[in-house]
């Protein structure tokens, strides 16, 4: 009834993330854009698992965190922890400029223009 990724028992997620339930940063949101560093993937620590490698492979182009989770069939909460580690390691970069609490007037006007031109 569920996709394979979700049959993982919660304990398994805990192991995948090295025993941590929370990312090392709180700037990651589902829409945060990510991309592998130019030399991304070459300097992966020996401890990197297949999920870390899959994240970097998918991020050869720009993708949002939520897209990454969907393609990997892993929960966003888990991918956030993986991504956070890879950003700390310098192999993955946050592509989107820091989001503020609320989008400013300039950004909203750009979004409006963009929508009207669709």
């Amino acid at each position: 009834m569920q996709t394979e990724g979700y049959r993982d028992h919660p304990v398994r997620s805990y192991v995948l993330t090295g025993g941590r339930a929370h990312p090392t940063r709180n700037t990651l949101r589902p829409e945060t854009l990510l991309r592998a560093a130019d030399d991304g993937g070459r300097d992966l620590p020996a401890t990197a698992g297949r999920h870390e490698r899959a994240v970097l492979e998918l991020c050869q182009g720009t993708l949002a965190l939520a897209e990454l989770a969907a393609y990997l069939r892993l929960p966003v909460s888990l991918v956030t922890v993986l991504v956070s580690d890879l950003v700390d390691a310098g192999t993955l970069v946050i592509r989107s400029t820091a989001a503020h609490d609320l989008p400013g007037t300039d950004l909203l006007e750009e979004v409006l223009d963009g929508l009207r031109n669709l």
Partner: protein
Amino acid sequence: MGFATSEDARHLSADVDRSVKVLVVGAYGVGKTTLIDAVSEIPMLRTEEQITTASVGVDPRRGAKDTTTVAMDFGRVTLGASTALYLFGTPGQRRFWDLWAGLADGAVGVLVLVDTRWLEDSFEVLDQLEEHSRLPIAVVVNQFPDSPRHPDPEVRRALDLPPETPVVSGDVRERPHAVAALVALVEHALRRQGAGSVAA
């Protein structure tokens, strides 16, 4: 795996360096995924979180250790050269939003889909939005082929909406209608910012 090259159609253009989001909420079957699919430039995506049923208070007879899955469907559209708009279709109940850290933070606003045949299904969603978030809201009346047509003022009265909340009607399968709903929401968000800066 070898499928992720820079030519990968799933990737955003290299010029995109900014993302914004809109939440799409509404009762089950009201057309959230239909609206997202109508706007999205990529095939609809889904991501799921597991929660224990005990934490949401559903059917305790099945035992506290049971888990259930809460899904979020989403899509994306690139606006202009450098901005990606994400549309996250989330369960209407506010408590589920917290499953995705930062989901509501920084959102442009919320599109609330309603079906005039089951208007009362929207009450809980709207109440919770008013109580627990300060995000701008636009109400989208999804015109199903067999749903009765109600003038927007009637819907506004029935849902007890504040006068400034936009109400738009349309068939959300049609891209122009779905986009018009987004335009109404962003215009509303802009008006609110204008009002906010005057008040501040």
